[in-house]
């Protein structure tokens, strides 16, 4: 059933992005920038559940608009974050940054509404190829290399996913994107014996998903990229890639046992690295890994309550993590610094940024009355209910770590603590422009609203019965007392060990070492052994091949000169003309070629869907 009323929000964002360069500067442009994401938000909000935009392509029916409870709540929060992120970046004059961000959101929405693996894969790649520009547009000394590493890892993940999809199609003849069948068959509760009890296609698809969810050891792209992205780019990136992957896991791999230990490891891994990190945005990036760990574990537990928890936590996480990146981003934007060893004591200069970041910190730490409190605990409770005590207690341990870093370490070492600011940093520091404050204000309001008014978030969750049941328990005295004790005594530990936590001017070596150094190894291989083999072949060729070839060539040259030239001259001239046209399009700057290619794909896609 194809409804005529359905407009895909991605289409709106693609169109808006392509029109943006034509919009005149000033108030019109600012209105346009807010209106397009807002319209996309209203569209997703009003769309009734159903299946829309089904087109046939070769032998398949491609579904661009599968709207149900699960996809609707994700699309809702993604478009909402797009509104907030765009407001935050309203002062950015560079059209390309906005275009890249909107393409990126459109890719994420396309994945969420995709009803089959082909559409999913298409938009999956749109996401990777548009988000890389959010790193490149920082135009810093490291941006180019970081962007290429990001692209490399995501291309690898995309290939894993594609291989999984192809094998899955071969095995089942199906491309519909639903719960993978051999995951369903192993749903008899968690057991360590079942960890690898899935078929190869399912495993590959899962690997493709968890690479985007940043599950160790496939996670190092995340802190690498998010620490290096533009100030506004990081706000977008922290929301979309990992949470779209969580959606894909909740849809396709719910109840897959291996996700539980992976999720718990993630939650702890992020916490450990966050202790070591000196760069505030990289610290927040490690905490994304930690928080997404809860969601991945929730998907792995796979009960109705756990899936609710994963969805609710993704929803809350997008807002508070966006808020935290906006807070630390505004410090970077105003002072040019993001390292704790270069900051400190800024509360006098940036008090509002401090308050907003603190609200984000309290939300991520799951303080009562803040958003994390009503979302995170649902996953932990689902774990305890399934008698996964080890998972429950380890996730509790990680939540102490969350408060320790994001609630205490970040605010303390930026706004209080020892003032490490240089004179220049101190003079530049001030609260950021109004649009940035508005964006932070909206996100902060929502963080508190979700925490205080439970039905708002719980009413959108996919499994309503469970959500109703848990809504009775969430503000029960036991849960409140448990959380308050953990958090307050974590704070005691923090202040006792404050000296230990003093920031150190170091970087943390992570799994990216392998491909950073692996790349160097490849370079060495190319420059030394392969080069000498190549030289050898050249030498041999010169003696054995070149002489006969020259003789032949002399003959053909004579033939050419005397026989063919007259005929062909006309063709040659026109080919040269075309060549010089092509040369003008190819600036040799690889990013711009990629950008043209991505835009062309978007246009073809729009034309295709409209047909």
């Amino acid at each position, binding site marked *: 059933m194809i409804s005529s009323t359905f407009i895909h929000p991605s289409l709106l964002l693609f169109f808006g992005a392509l029109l943006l360069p034509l919009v005149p500067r000033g108030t019109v442009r600012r209105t346009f920038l807010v209106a397009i994401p807002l319209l996309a938000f209203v569209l997703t909000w009003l769309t009734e559940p159903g299946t829309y935009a089904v087109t046939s392509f070769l032998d398949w029916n491609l579904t661009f608009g599968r709207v149900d409870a699960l996809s609707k709540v994700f699309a809702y929060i993604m478009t909402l974050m797009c509104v907030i992120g765009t407001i935050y970046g309203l002062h950015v004059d560079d059209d390309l940054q906005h275009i890249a961000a909107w393409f990126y959101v459109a890719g994420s929405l396309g994945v969420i509404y995709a009803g089959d693996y082909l559409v999913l894969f298409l938009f999956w790649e749109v996401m990777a190829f548009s988000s890389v520009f959010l790193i490149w547009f920082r135009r810093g000394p490291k941006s180019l290399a970081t962007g290429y590493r990001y692209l490399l890892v995501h291309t690898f993940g995309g290939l894993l996913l594609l291989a999984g999809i192809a094998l899955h199609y071969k095995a089942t003849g199906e491309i519909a994107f639903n719960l993978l069948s051999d995951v369903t068959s192993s749903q008899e509760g968690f057991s360590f014996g079942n960890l690898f009890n899935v078929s190869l296609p399912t495993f590959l698809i899962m690997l493709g998903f968890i690479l985007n969810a940043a599950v160790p050891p496939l996670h190092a792209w995340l802190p690498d990229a998010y620490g290096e992205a533009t100030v506004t780019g990081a706000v977008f990136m922290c929301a979309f890639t990992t949470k779209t992957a969580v959606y894909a896991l909740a849809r396709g791999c719910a109840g897959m046992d291996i996700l539980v230990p992976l999720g718990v490891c993630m939650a702890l891994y992020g*916490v*450990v*690295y966050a*202790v*070591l990190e000196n760069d505030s945005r990289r610290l927040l990036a490690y905490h994304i890994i930690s928080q997404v760990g809860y969601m991945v574990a929730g998907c792995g537990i796979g009960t109705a309550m756990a899936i609710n928890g994963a969805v609710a936590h993704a929803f809350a996480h997008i807002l508070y993590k966006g808020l935290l990146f906006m807070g630390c981003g505004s410090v970077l934007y105003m002072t040019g610094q993001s390292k704790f060893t270069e900051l400190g004591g800024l*509360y*006098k200069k940036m*008090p*509002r940024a*401090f*308050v907003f970041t603190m609200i984000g910190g309290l939300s991520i730490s799951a303080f009562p009355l803040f958003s994390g409190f009503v979302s995170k605990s649902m996953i932990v*409770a689902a774990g*305890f*209910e399934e008698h996964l*005590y080890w998972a*429950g207690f380890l996730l*509790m*341990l990680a939540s*102490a*770590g969350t408060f*320790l870093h994001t609630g205490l370490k970040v605010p303390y070492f930026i706004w209080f603590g020892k003032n490490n600011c240089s004179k220049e940093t101190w003079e530049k520091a001030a609260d950021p422009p109004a649009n940035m404050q508005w964006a932070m204000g909206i996100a902060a309001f929502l963080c508190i609203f979700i925490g205080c008014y439970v039905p708002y978030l719980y009413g959108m969750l996919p499994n309503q019965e469970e959500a109703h049941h848990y809504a009775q*328990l969430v503000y*029960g*005295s*036991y*849960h409140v*007392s*448990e*959380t*308050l*004790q*953990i*958090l*307050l*005594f*974590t704070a*005691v*530990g*923090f202040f*006792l*060990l404050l000296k*230990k*936590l003093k920031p*150190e*001017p*170091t*970087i*943390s*070596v*992570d799994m990216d070492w392998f491909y*950073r150094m692996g790349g160097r190894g490849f370079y060495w291989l190319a420059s030394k052994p392969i080069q000498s083999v190549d030289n050898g072949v050249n030498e041999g060729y010169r003696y054995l091949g070149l002489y006969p070839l020259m003789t032949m060539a002399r003959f053909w040259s004579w033939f050419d000169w005397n026989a063919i030239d007259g005929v062909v001259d006309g063709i040659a001239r026109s080919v040269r003309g075309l060549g010089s046209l092509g040369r003008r399009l190819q600036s040799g700057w690889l990013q711009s070629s990629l950008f043209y290619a991505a835009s062309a794909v978007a246009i073809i896609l729009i034309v295709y869907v409209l047909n």
Partner: protein
Amino acid sequence: MIVNLIDYLRDRLKTVIRYCFVVLGLVVVWDILLVDKEHAHTHIEQIWGFWSFFGFGACVVIILVSKWIGHCHWFGGKFTIMAPEDFYDK
């Protein structure tokens, strides 16, 4: 306004800390005397102030273990996870 409030509290840091300890004590007393532990998942949570010990212990363990991991000389050589900032530029 925000700055004034923070400065006001900072000027009376000792009193603020004293009140914080009172709050900590009250939370534990509340947990022991009034909280219904029917929703506890395991027996161990019935211990008085269990989650207080857990929170404090978790914090100390996370800091000490992480710093140890970061500073430890792995593989018996010079390599540490917390590396100098120019680590990749060499």
